[in-house]
């Protein structure tokens, strides 16, 4: 049974569109994306600020609040033998509340502000354990200490009664991870969990997440703007630009052979240790256009060096350019190239 299961995607997003309505117009934060994540696998989501990474995460959690709204698409979540359509559930309803925190958990970017300053980390971790596992006070506390131990917080018996402001950034993020994993979720969504941390702590936290993933057999959606981080943790990577997926591939393929000009641009703008010293880092020209006023045709064409008339006119589809390697670019379309 478990063999059949592990092949089936745990979560399958299809043609998801999440828009924000405001007086300035409609911002298409996520505009027709599809992907799937299997058990024990990690999907890396990469892109600049405003590309729709976080909105994707919050759409799965159904944490999008007005004026944001899931316009269409489906989010199928495999729960044991049944498949739930998360996009169709009441965001304040019972089923979703049972899933959130217990089966799908989330880690946020800012450990400084994502923990409630007026409660101890113990109170915040036991709260979720008691809520979902129905554990008593003592049992929940034991479990919370175990979790703090699992995320390698030293002397968890004392730290459990600390308030967030008494911990360092790295420790807070560990506490967040402990909280997110305390009910052994099958899917963990990590929204830039290492961005606010310094580099050595980043590496520790990533190693920790990988170890815990193996231990708890969870799937991870790992959101970041840092390609280096994604190389270290993801099995598959999807690159987003202005609410769309421009490229999706297994991590090795993506790094060995980035096909989309945007992905190529991201790769070359990483400083290299053996590059010439005085050489300036290449940059992707221009700025991200406003989501209220999206370019016609391919959304990347105003910043693309290879843009042709076709790119200005018609939006490319996400097609399989190599086995499992999908890219949305006219240059990669054999019929057009």
């Amino acid at each position, binding site marked *: 049974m478990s063999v059949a299961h592990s092949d089936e995607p745990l979560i399958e997003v299809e043609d998801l569109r999440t828009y924000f309505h405001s007086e300035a117009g409609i911002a298409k934060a996520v505009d027709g994306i599809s992907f799937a994540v299997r058990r024990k696998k990690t999907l890396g989501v990469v892109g600049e600020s405003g590309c729709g990474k976080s909105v994707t995460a919050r759409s799965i959690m159904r944490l999008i609040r007005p004026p944001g709204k899931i316009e269409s698409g489906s989010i199928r979540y495999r729960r044991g033998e049944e498949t739930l359509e998360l996009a169709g559930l009441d965001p304040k309803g019972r089923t979703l*509340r049972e899933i*959130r*925190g217990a089966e799908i958990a989330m880690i946020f970017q800012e450990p400084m502000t994502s923990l409630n300053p007026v409660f101890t980390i113990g109170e915040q971790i036991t709260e979720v354990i008691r809520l979902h596992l129905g554990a008593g006070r003592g049992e929940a506390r034991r479990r919370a200490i175990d979790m703090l131990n699992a995320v390698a917080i030293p002397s968890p018996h004392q730290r459990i009664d600390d308030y967030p402001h008494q911990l360092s950034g790295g420790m807070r993020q560990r506490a967040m991870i402990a909280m997110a994993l305390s009910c052994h979720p099958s899917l963990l969504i990590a929204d830039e969990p290492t961005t606010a941390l310094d580099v050595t702590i980043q590496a520790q936290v990533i190693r920790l997440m990988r170890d815990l993933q193996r231990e708890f057999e969870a799937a991870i959606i790992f959101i970041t703007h840092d390609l280096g981080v994604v190389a270290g943790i993801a099995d598959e990577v999807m690159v987003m630009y202005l609410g769309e997926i421009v490229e999706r591939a297994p991590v090795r393929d993506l790094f060995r052979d980035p096909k989309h000009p945007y992905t190529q641009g991201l790769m070359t703008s990483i400083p290299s240790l053996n590059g010439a010293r005085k050489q300036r880092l290449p940059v992707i020209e221009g700025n991200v256009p406003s989501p209220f006023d999206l370019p016609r045709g391919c959304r990347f064409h105003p910043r693309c060096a290879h843009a042709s008339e076709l790119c200005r006119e018609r939006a490319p589809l996400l097609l399989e350019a190599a086995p499992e390697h999908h890219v949305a670019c006219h240059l990669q379309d054999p019929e057009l190239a």
Partner: protein
Amino acid sequence: MVPAGLLLVTFLFGLFHFIPGDPALLLAGDNASAEVVEGIRRAYGFDQPLPVQYWTYMKKVLQGDLGVSNFSREPVTALILPRIFNTAQLAFWSMGFAMVVSLILGCCSAMFWNTWIDKLITGIALLGICTPVFVSGLFGIFLFSVKLGLLPTGGLDSWRSFVLPVVTLGAFQAAVLTRMVRASMVEALGQDYIETARAKGLAETAVVFKHALRNAMLPIVTLFGLGFGATLGGSVVTETIFTWPGLGRTMVESILSRDLPVTQGALLLFAFMFIGINLVVDLLYAAIDPRIRFDAP
């Protein structure tokens, strides 16, 4: 708190010495002879140098002796202590009423931010702030006491005497507090940890009343303390309207009859109640926010 108290007593002492008029002359009356006035001056120690008078006054205050009323010859403490109780009771119930009402309305407003519910509540609160207590109080007396005969116009006999003053005073403070609760809650609900709480699978009521409200309480408690002080200070007006036997009315009466020891005593007690409230507010800060508790030297 102790330095503040000492400073206060000193200030009051100074204040009463620099108001124009000779206290001995006042006590003796307009028709008294020069010898009588001189006798009174000596008996009360008004002839002593200022530092000596200050020292005597300070000693007496510290021993709980606030002097004797110029008219009834009763000790000031005996005169005003029961009055304080009435004033405090009125302030307590009004502020309790204000707290409950403002928390409910303010949280509702924040939860339904920018909807018609929010706009209605904010509108009512604005109206409440714009209506002074002497207007709403007199209107209340006119409607419920004079026209409908449901409640007494004033005095303090039974629980029914409480209704009008408590609601009038409380409604005004509730209006002020509602706006603060709303603003504070809207801010708290926009914080990252609220999203964390929602992502944990908590019900919206737990998110609002546990995670947001506790964080929103700090500015609310500050304003609540100020409101409590204002209610005490405002008792001068309220107690006059509702003929409430409290400290505020005693003070007004003592001023009108130039009964200086009573005025002085009443003022001193008002001031000490303010200091007391501030102390309670500070202690509440620490209870609410661990960052204040632990950062203290």
